[in-house]
């Protein structure tokens, strides 16, 4: 099935999934719970995965679902690890420079739309009936073996780097956080987050440094 010969239901499905991907992507930054954000982002990825499947990427769509589910679950775990607070207790907004962000986002969108509508793209739809999975496989382990291996080594390096960065032992053997101090709550101020005061400061200061309790 090439995109051109796709039946009408595929067309409808494309737009349903595409709009759902955009809607959930928007909701990611408009919800008051970070776990929910992670799962909304996952929903956006799942919808894009479905679109890719409709476009004919029979392996890619599924692989996208697989990878993103794992990544977003890890993401959600991180949320809870850093704030042990089920289902969100204190709804609050944690944003800065909102105007710049809106302008930049709208600009990126506008640029993309212009590119999409005005750009000259060759009209060469893929052939029907080709085995895309086998094609990808022979590409990965054939002509593009070097790319494949590079990606693999990069992932390995990322894993090693991540473990090294997050491990408590520093390069020199001691604890990585030895002698380090949290920043004060206001730049130049002398109030520190609760529990990590460099000297007993009495009571708990206001707590701007930590992610809060969403």
């Amino acid at each position, binding site marked *: 099935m090439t995109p051109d010969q796709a039946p009408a239901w595929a067309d409808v499905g494309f737009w349903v999934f*595409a709009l759902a991907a955009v809607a959930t992507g928007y909701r990611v930054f408009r919800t008051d719970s970070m776990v929910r954000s992670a799962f909304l982002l996952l929903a956006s990825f799942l919808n894009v995965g479905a679109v890719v499947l409709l*476009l004919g990427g029979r392996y890619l769509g599924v692989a996208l679902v697989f990878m993103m589910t794992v990544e977003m679950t890890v993401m959600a775990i991180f949320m809870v690890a850093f704030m042990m607070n089920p289902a969100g207790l204190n709804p609050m907004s*944690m944003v*800065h420079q909102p105007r710049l*962000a809106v302008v930049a*986002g709208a600009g*990126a969108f506008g640029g993309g*739309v212009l590119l999409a509508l005005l750009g000259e793209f060759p009209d060469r739809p893929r052939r029907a009936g080709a085995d895309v999975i086998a094609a990808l496989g022979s590409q990965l382990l054939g002509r593009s073996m070097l790319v494949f291996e590079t990606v693999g080594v990069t992932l390995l390096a990322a894993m090693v780097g991540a473990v090294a960065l997050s491990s408590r032992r520093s390069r020199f053997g001691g604890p990585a956080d030895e002698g380090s*101090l949290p920043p004060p709550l206001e730049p130049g101020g002398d109030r520190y987050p609760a529990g990590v005061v460099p000297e007993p400061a009495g009571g708990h200061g206001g707590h701007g440094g930590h992610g809060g309790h969403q």
Partner: protein
Amino acid sequence: MSLEGALVVAAALVGLGLWGALSQQSIVMVLMGVELMVNGVILAAAALWAFAAAGAPEGQLLVVMAMAVMAVELAVGFAVVVALYRCRQVDMTDGLESLRN
């Protein structure tokens, strides 16, 4: 289902991701914004592969690369968050004027 439609949707995802990444304070949320942008890139790459590249296997390869980039970004991003949190109990961008100390 057309190339233009897919590219517009991809642009919307990239725009939303940029907006989120710039406006959010929490580092983890910034990472989410970046992920959403890569999501748009993946969609655009898949659409170009299907409509404009005659289904060349290199197109699929590009998508696989984008997914790998995302995995690397997430792994290193989380590692940096953990390292920062360990040193400073910070997981917000505003708490970090510099990476010294």
